């Protein structure tokens, strides 16, 4: 009973909480001068994508940030190294968090509603590009998680690492237009958090630009770089005492 109750309550609470996010966006939009170059309906679409994306990442990888530090500190990370798969794959598969399923559901409903509300006629190439950016976004997110795990392995005890990670991710919660100068450059190219929400929404709104290509390349490069760093670090893994 305890698991069923936890699942039902977890999905219900995340679904309910997620539904309030478009309301918050409405309040921000109506009480401020809004976001430059974004109508309210477009901002709702952005919020829907934010929900949908957060739901996917939290469901697939939500537990990793908590569990990796614990595993390294207690030495139970050793157990992953005696399984016949790359240790990083084993870590990534251990991040599943079923409670966030409600957020995916809320995000998907909001996404369909927003598209219909905007009267967008979605072309096949948009669907293709949208899913392509979902995959690229996931690869980029995984790269950051691998770097996070590499740092955990090196530093062992760093409580604030998760907060830094979350702050970095939170930059993606706003459209590029609110950032200026160097920040925008970082947002779109250097650490292209735009691949998660901003670019997929731009694709649905028929607003393609060259930064999408750069971000795609940077994401793939970062994945390789993070794997190289991870493999270097794993050679120096010291385990914990008995």
């Amino acid at each position, binding site marked *: 009973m305890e698991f069923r109750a936890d699942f039902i309550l977890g999905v219900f609470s995340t679904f309910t909480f997620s539904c309030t996010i478009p309301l918050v966006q409405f309040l921000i939009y109506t009480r401020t001068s809004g976001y430059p170059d974004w109508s309210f309906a477009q901002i709702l679409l952005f919020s829907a994508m934010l929900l949908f994306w957060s739901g996917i990442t939290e469901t697939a990888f939500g537990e990793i940030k908590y569990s990796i530090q614990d595993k390294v500190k207690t030495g*139970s990370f050793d157990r992953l190294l005696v399984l016949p798969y790359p240790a990083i794959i084993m870590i990534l598969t251990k991040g599943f968090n079923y409670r966030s399923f409600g957020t995916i559901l809320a995000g998907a409903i909001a996404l369909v509603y927003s598209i219909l509300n905007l009267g967008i006629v979605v072309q096949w190439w948009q669907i293709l590009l949208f899913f392509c950016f979902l995959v690229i976004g996931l690869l980029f997110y995984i790269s950051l998680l691998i770097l996070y795990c590499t740092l955990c392995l090196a530093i062992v005890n760093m409580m604030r690492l998760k907060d830094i990670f979350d702050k970095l991710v939170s930059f993606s919660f706003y459209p590029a237009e609110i950032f200026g100068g160097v920040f925008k450059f970082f947002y779109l190219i250097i650490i292209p958090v735009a691949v998660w929400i901003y670019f997929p929404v731009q694709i649905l709104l028929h607003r393609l630009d060259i930064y999408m290509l750069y971000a795609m390349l940077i994401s793939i490069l970062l994945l390789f770089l993070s794997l190289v760093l991870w493999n270097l670090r794993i050679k120096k893994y010291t385990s914990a005492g008995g």
Partner: protein
Amino acid sequence: MNPIISVQGLRKTFKVHVRENEGLLASLAGVFHRKFKYITAIDDINLEVNKNEIRALIGPNGAGKSTIIKILSGVLYPTKGTVKVLDYVPWKEREEYVKRIGVLFGQKTQLTWELPALDTFAMHKIIYKIPNLQYKENLSYMVSIFNIRDIIQKPVRNLSLGERMKCEFVCTLLHEPELVFLDEPTIGLDIISKDNVRQFIKRVNKERGVTFIVTTHDLNEIKNLCDMVTIVNHGEIIYNDSLENLKVHSTYEKTVELRFSKPVPAAEANTYKLEMINPFSGKIKIDAKNNNFQKKISALLIELPVQDISIQTEDIETIIRKIIST
């Protein structure tokens, strides 16, 4: 016979932070300036293990046993030395290699706490790609030895330590490993559970030809289980031979225990240098190499009201303690 484990000149050093003083100021100073030193956990380890052995790896805490196990199982990279286990270099070909070994860390569970052990077994079936028939046969074989048919269906958090350890063993051996590393497998178990685990290891070793490397502090385990013993101290192997040959290191000192039919006065006991346990029993240590051994025993039997006598040689525990301390 070709050894399945062959280790030559193995060394592992760790870089550790040195804190010279205790307290808050020393902690703050450590933020700005840290001193490090290298400690050698194991050095010049040479070891060969043959197929079908049950090998004990023993030594005091911090001797380097777990470091050896972790290198042999591919968890740690060594600083120096060569290792071949089942024709693999563990840390280089780790993913292929671990399919053929089993590792049980007595203090690090592989079972999912909230789920029945049966679900973890099913997950291992997928992870190790165990064919359905082989999985069912292995599970049934081990479940019947341990008699845990009902236990494996309860959530792991509801199991006792002994029950959980039995499930850990099943999990470790499901994929039919040829070599199994057991790092303190009976830690915290009661005598009945310890005995169950030992019987299980013996049976699997005999019936399936599985080689076991066991680290333990329990000397009964060594006596009841292992053919070969490797003693490690300060990161070096100080004994590496059969349990039988360990007795070569024993002295000729015998402990003679006597039980008397009536109380023996303290003055009389002192005459024979008897250490009295109570007025009705006492013990004395006699060197059997000494020519007077027979004479001393005869004198005790004639002069004292001896009802019962037992003569004990040095036990394994004493011998091992002696080897480690020297």
